[in-house]
C-alpha cells in the first residue's frame, strides 16, 4: 500500500491519469476494430519524429531558463538547412547530413543571440521566449518569400520565386534516417530503427554532457544560482550555452521530423510547434525547473501515444473526430498544471 502511494507521489496524478487513459485506449482499440499493430507502429514513428524536439527542452529547463517556448527559433535554423539541402539536391543520408551541417551554425548564432536576450530578462523568460518564437516565425514568413531559392521542387510554379508552404522531401531524403536498419512485420507494423538509434545517440550525448563539468555547472546554475556564483561559475555564460544547445537540438529535431514526415512545412507551420514539445516533457514528469532524459522518453511516448490513439479509437467509438479538442485540452492543461504547481511547492 505504502509502495503504491509512493509511486503515485513520484509519478504525479496527471501522468498516471494520462498513462491510464492511453492504456485504456490500447485496450479498447481491438473492440472498435482499430488495428493494434498499426496503432503501435504509428505511435513508435511519431515518438521517433518528435523525440529530439522534446529533448531540446532539457538544457534550458536544467539551467533555469524555464520551458523553451522559443523552440521555433531552432526550428527555423533547421528549416533553412533543410531547404538549402534540397536546393543543392543531394539525396539520401548525405542530403540529411548536409541539411544538419548547414543548420548547425545558423542555430548556434541564433541561439547565442537568443541566449544573450534571455540573460537580460531573467524572471520572465517564458513569456518572452513565446513571443520571440512567434515573431521569428512571422519574420521568416517574409524571408521565405524573398530568399533567392530557385529549385523548381520548392518555388511557386507560376511566379518562379517564393517558397511553397509545404515542400515534399520525397526524392531527396524521405525517411533517410528512419530506414537505416528499419524492418516491417506484416503489412502494418513498421519500426524506424535508424530514427530510434539517432534519438538514442542524442539522448546518450545529453546524458554524458550532463555529467561533465560543464553539465554539472549548468545544473547548479538552474537549481541554485547563488551557490553557483559563489563557486565561481559564470551564470550568464552557462545560460547562454544551454540556450544554444536547446536551439541546436531544435534544429536537428525538425530535420529528423521532416525526413520521417516527408514534408518541409514553412511559413506558419512551425508557429505552434513548441507547445506539443513542452507539454510532452511535462507529461513525462518534468517541472519548470527539473527535467531528465527519462522524462523526455516517457513524456514523448505518452503524449504521442495519445495523439495517435485518440483520433482512431474515439472516432470509431462515437463517429466524431474530437482528437483536436482533446489534444488542445491535454497539452495546454499539462502546461497550466506545471506553471501553477511549482509556485505552490515553494511559498
Amino acid at each position, binding site marked *: 500500500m505504502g509502495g503504491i502511494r509512493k509511486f503515485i507521489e513520484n509519478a504525479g496524478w496527471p501522468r498516471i491519469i494520462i498513462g491510464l487513459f492511453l492504456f485504456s485506449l490500447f485496450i479498447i482499440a481491438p473492440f472498435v476494430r482499430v488495428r493494434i499493430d498499426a496503432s503501435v507502429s504509428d505511435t513508435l514513428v511519431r515518438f521517433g519524429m518528435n523525440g529530439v524536439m522534446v529533448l531540446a527542452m532539457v538544457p534550458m529547463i536544467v539551467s533555469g531558463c524555464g520551458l523553451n517556448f522559443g523552440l521555433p527559433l531552432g526550428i527555423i535554423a533547421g528549416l533553412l538547412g533543410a531547404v538549402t539541402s534540397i536546393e543543392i539536391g543531394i539525396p539520401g543520408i548525405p542530403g540529411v547530413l548536409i541539411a544538419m551541417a548547414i543548420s548547425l551554425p545558423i542555430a548556434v548564432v541564433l541561439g547565442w543571440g537568443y541566449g544573450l536576450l534571455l540573460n537580460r530578462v531573467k524572471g520572465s523568460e517564458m513569456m518572452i521566449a513565446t*513571443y520571440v518564437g512567434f515573431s521569428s516565425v512571422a519574420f521568416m*514568413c517574409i524571408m521565405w518569400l524573398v530568399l533567392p531559392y530557385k529549385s523548381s521542387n520548392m518555388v511557386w510554379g507560376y511566379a518562379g520565386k517564393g517558397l511553397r508552404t509545404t515542400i515534399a522531401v520525397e526524392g531527396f531524403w524521405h525517411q533517410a534516417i528512419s530506414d537505416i536498419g528499419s524492418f516491417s512485420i506484416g503489412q502494418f507494423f513498421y519500426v524506424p530503427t535508424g530514427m530510434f538509434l539517432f534519438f538514442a545517440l542524442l539522448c546518450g550525448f545529453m546524458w554524458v554532457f550532463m555529467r561533465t563539468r560543464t553539465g554539472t555547472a549548468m545544473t547548479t546554475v538552474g537549481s541554485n544560482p547563488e551557490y553557483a556564483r559563489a563557486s565561481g561559475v559564470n551564470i550568464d555564460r552557462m545560460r547562454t550555452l544551454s540556450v544554444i544547445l536547446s536551439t541546436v537540438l531544435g534544429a536537428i529535431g525538425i530535420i529528423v521530423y521532416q525526413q520521417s514526415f516527408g514534408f518541409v512545412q514553412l511559413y506558419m507551420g512551425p508557429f505552434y510547434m513548441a*507547445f506539443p514539445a513542452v507539454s510532452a516533457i511535462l507529461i513525462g514528469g518534468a517541472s519548470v525547473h527539473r527535467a531528465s532524459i527519462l522524462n523526455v522518453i516517457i513524456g514523448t511516448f505518452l503524449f504521442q501515444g495519445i495523439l495517435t490513439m485518440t483520433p482512431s479509437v474515439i472516432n470509431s467509438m462515437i463517429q466524431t473526430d*474530437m482528437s483536436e479538442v482533446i489534444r*488542445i485540452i491535454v497539452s495546454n492543461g499539462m*502546461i497550466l498544471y506545471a506553471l501553477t504547481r511549482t509556485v505552490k511547492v515553494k511559498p
Partner: protein
Amino acid sequence: MNKKADLLKHYLIQNAVPILFIAVSAFAIPISQFSGTYLVQEMLVRLSRNSFLVLSLLIPIMAGMGLNFGMVLGAMAGQIGLIFMSDWSVVGVPGVILAAIISTPLAIALGWLCGTILNLAKGREMVTSFILGFFMNGVYQLVVLYGFGSVVPMTNPAMVLSRGFGIRNVTNLEGIRKCLDNLMPLNILGIDIPLATFLIIGLFCLFVLWFRGTKLGQDMRAVGQDMKVAGDAGIPVERTRLIAIIISTVLACYGQIIFLQNIGTMNTYNSHEQAGMFAIASLLVGGASVSRASIFNVFLGVVLFHLMFVVSPMAGKYLIGEAQLGEYFRVFVSYGIISLALVLHAWRRQKDRERARRSLRGAAGE
C-alpha cells in the same frame, strides 16, 4: 554628470514603441496612396470597434498582474451570449443587451477561474494567462462544437452543422449589425461617427478614472506596487487580484460584443483568439508597458496599430509589388511589438533590481 543624457535615454526607451510606430506610419502612409478622409473614417470605425476591448486590459495592469492574456476568456463568454441571442433571433439593441445579460454570469465565472489560477502562479501571471487562454479555447471548442445542439438545445437549425450538433464556423450576426453604431448617427464632412458606441466607451473611461480613486482601486495599486507590503498593510491581496481579473474578464466580454456587432459576422472558433492578441498589441503600441498603462495609451495605441494595419498591405504592394508581403509584415509587426515591449519591460526591471542591489552594496561599503 551625464544625467541629462541619461534622462533623454530614459525617455526614449520609455516611449520607444510609439515613436517607432509614428516613424513607420509617416513613411508608409504616402506610399499606400490612401486619401485622408478614408483613413480618418477607417480610424474612427476601428476606434469604436476596438477601444473597449483594449480598455479592459487596464485594471489588471493596475493590480500588477501584467497584460491579461486571459481576456480571451471574456471574449469567449461574449460569443456564447451572441450565439444564444442569434439562436433566439433577437435583433437590434435589445439583442445586444440580451447577449450581455446572458454572458455576464459566464464571464464572472470564467474570470473567477482565471483569477484563482493566476493566484496560484504569482510572478508568472502573463505566461499562465496566455496558456490558460489556449486551454480554455479547447474547452470552448468542446462546448460549442460538441455540446451545442446535443446537450444545449438549439432552436435555429440554420446555425447548427449539418450533422445535427455543433455551431457552424460562421455565425451570422446580421440582426445586430452596427445597431449600436447607428443608434445615434452623426455625419460630419462625410465622415460617419458612431456616437452611441463612443458614448459607451467614454462612460467606461469615466468609470476607470472613478475606480482608481475608490478604496478598491487604491488597494489594487498597492498590490501592484508590492504584494507583500500590501498584505502586511491588511489588504486581502488574493481577493483584490481576483476582483481585478473578474472585472477585466467581464469588460472584455462586453468589448467583444461591441466588436462583433460592428463586424456583423462571427468566426465562431477564431474571433476570440484574434481579440486578445490585437488588443494587447494595440495597448503596447500606444506606449503602455506591462506595469503602467493609461487611457491615453489605449486610444493612441488603437489608432497607431490600426493605421499600420490598414496601410501596410497597400504599402507593401506599391513598394515591392506584393500584397502578401505587406500581410506578413503586419503579422510580424504585431508579434514583434509585443516581444519588444515585453523585453524592454523585463530588461528595465532587471536593471532596476541590479541598481537597487548596487546601491545597497555601496551603502554597506561606506
